[in-house]
């Protein structure tokens, strides 16, 4: 079975009058880098919560179908048990931070998983270094700026060394350089350590180049699922308001003029290269 498996999964929040997810089926294998995108309110966060068990164990409601994570049916497994496989970075980082300073925040998750104290100390220092948190070490998480909180929330999740990282719009509060830094770290962990990544993002120019797959959600349903170069040029992406990279938009406009590049560019550099290819041939 896949590492994360949605089998005809539907969910409706208690008191809501429509389904937040409807008959979602998808298999995500170990080592994939999946970007989830789609209009505001389409169910991305609900999907994330269904992977780490907050749906249905914390957010209650009507449920049909199943979600399996690392061989466990999430209906049966507790959130605590699922935390040994899944690390979730919340959309609103302030809701995730529970301790009094950076060191404690980073140690909190691994402690709950029963990681050895010595190993925890090592991880904490590594993460502080990797994510540039040294200057915030003594700070209270609720006395940090929005971007500082978001960086800390990501750090605390990475300290769990999760098999599956689920990150819900993890760059929304980050300055552009920090966003690049964090996304590079995630991509590196995916490539080098095989960490499975499921990441929600609106600005696909930031992540399309790293992703092996994009899942497009609309009104709780999967409307497209495939490689970025296949999904982004489709009309549906434009129609539902996906933040398509400028280079891909140019590709589409050229296509309507009858000009075909040899593949779909996701970045400006790639666009330049593909145009160069045409002129030199």
């Amino acid at each position, binding site marked *: 079975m896949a590492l994360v498996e949605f089998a005809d999964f539907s969910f409706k929040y208690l008191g809501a009058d429509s389904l937040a997810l409807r008959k979602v089926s998808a298999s995500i294998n170990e080592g994939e880098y999946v970007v989830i995108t789609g209009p505001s309110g389409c169910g991305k966060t609900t999907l994330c919560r269904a992977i780490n068990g907050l749906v249905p164990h914390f957010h209650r409601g009507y449920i049909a179908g199943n979600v399996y994570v690392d061989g466990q049916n999430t209906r049966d497994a507790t959130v605590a048990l699922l935390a040994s496989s899944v690390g979730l970075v919340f959309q609103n980082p302030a809701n995730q931070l529970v301790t009094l300073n950076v060191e404690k925040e980073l140690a909190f998750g691994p402690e709950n998983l029963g990681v050895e104290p010595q190993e925890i100390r090592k991880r904490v220092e590594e993460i502080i270094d990797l994510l540039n948190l040294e200057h915030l070490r003594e700070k209270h998480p609720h006395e940090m700026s929005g971007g500082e909180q978001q960086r800390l929330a990501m750090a605390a999740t990475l300290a769990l060394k999760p098999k599956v990282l689920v990150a819900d719009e993890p760059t929304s509060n980050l300055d552009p350089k920090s966003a690049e830094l964090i996304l590079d770290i995630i991509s590196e962990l995916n490539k080098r350590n095989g960490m499975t990544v499921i990441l929600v993002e609106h600005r696909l*120019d930031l992540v399309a180049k790293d992703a092996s797959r994009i899942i497009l959600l609309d009104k709780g349903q999967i409307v497209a699922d495939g490689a970025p170069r296949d999904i982004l040029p489709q009309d549906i992406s434009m129609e539902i308001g996906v933040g398509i990279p400028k280079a891909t938009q140019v590709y589409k406009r050229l296509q309507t003029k009858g000009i075909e590049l040899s593949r779909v560019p996701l970045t400006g550099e790639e666009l330049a290269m593909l145009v160069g290819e045409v002129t030199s041939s």
Partner: protein
Amino acid sequence: MILVEDIHFSYDGIYTALQGVSLQIEKGERVAIMGTNGAGKTTLIKHMNGLLRPQHGRVIVDGTDAKSLSIAELSRTVGLVWQNPDHQLFLDSVRKEIEFGLKNLGFSPEEANEQCTQTLKNLGLEGLAERSPFALSGGERKRVALATVLATEPRVLALDEPTIGQDAHQKERLASMLLDLNERERTVIVVTHDVEFVIENFPRTIAMADGRIVADGSTSSVLSNEDVLERCSLTPPQLTVAARALHKVFPQVPERLALLSELENAVSEILGVVP
């Protein structure tokens, strides 16, 4: 007009979040404030409606020293949307949340109801009026927080990260609402990390780092200044990145392009000369 004169602010008396910030924003401007996480952008914008008070220096709103005005008084002129909507929403329905501010300003129940309905529609929130703000998606919550302020059409809009959680269509809607308010002489100030949103909608950009203003000028000049980008943790707009990459191979393409259609035309021209 908003005049900020050499303000300093520290939350804890040790670390200084603002270390001498001065700026002037005229009535009817559209200004973006950008820069490094922790630079002091939120701290600065909270000074504009009196939520924070300078420990040194002064803030002058429409000719009056903000010191002599209460938050309630200032808020009539400067409508602030918080970075985190959780800190702003407190009532049990979206409609109540939006009508609250309107009624405070003396709107009749009917007027408030109508203005609320229109604002919800403009922000893609139709159908959510009777919902609890706590049973919404992150992007919807942010739009409700925006709606509470945009509905009242204050003379100055001060929006902290308004595009957080918004998809491409919602961003366009928000931008057109802001441009419309701006045409009706509202001043629009946003704090944002969204380079594309800024380049498309804001003629002036103030870039900050370490509690100070590093650059203040036209958006195109600020966002093409390598030194400023470096110091304020910014990256150039996507179009610039693409234009530069093309320029390296095809020197006839200018290094700076403002519109997607210009990039498209530049590429068409290059390819047009191919037999």
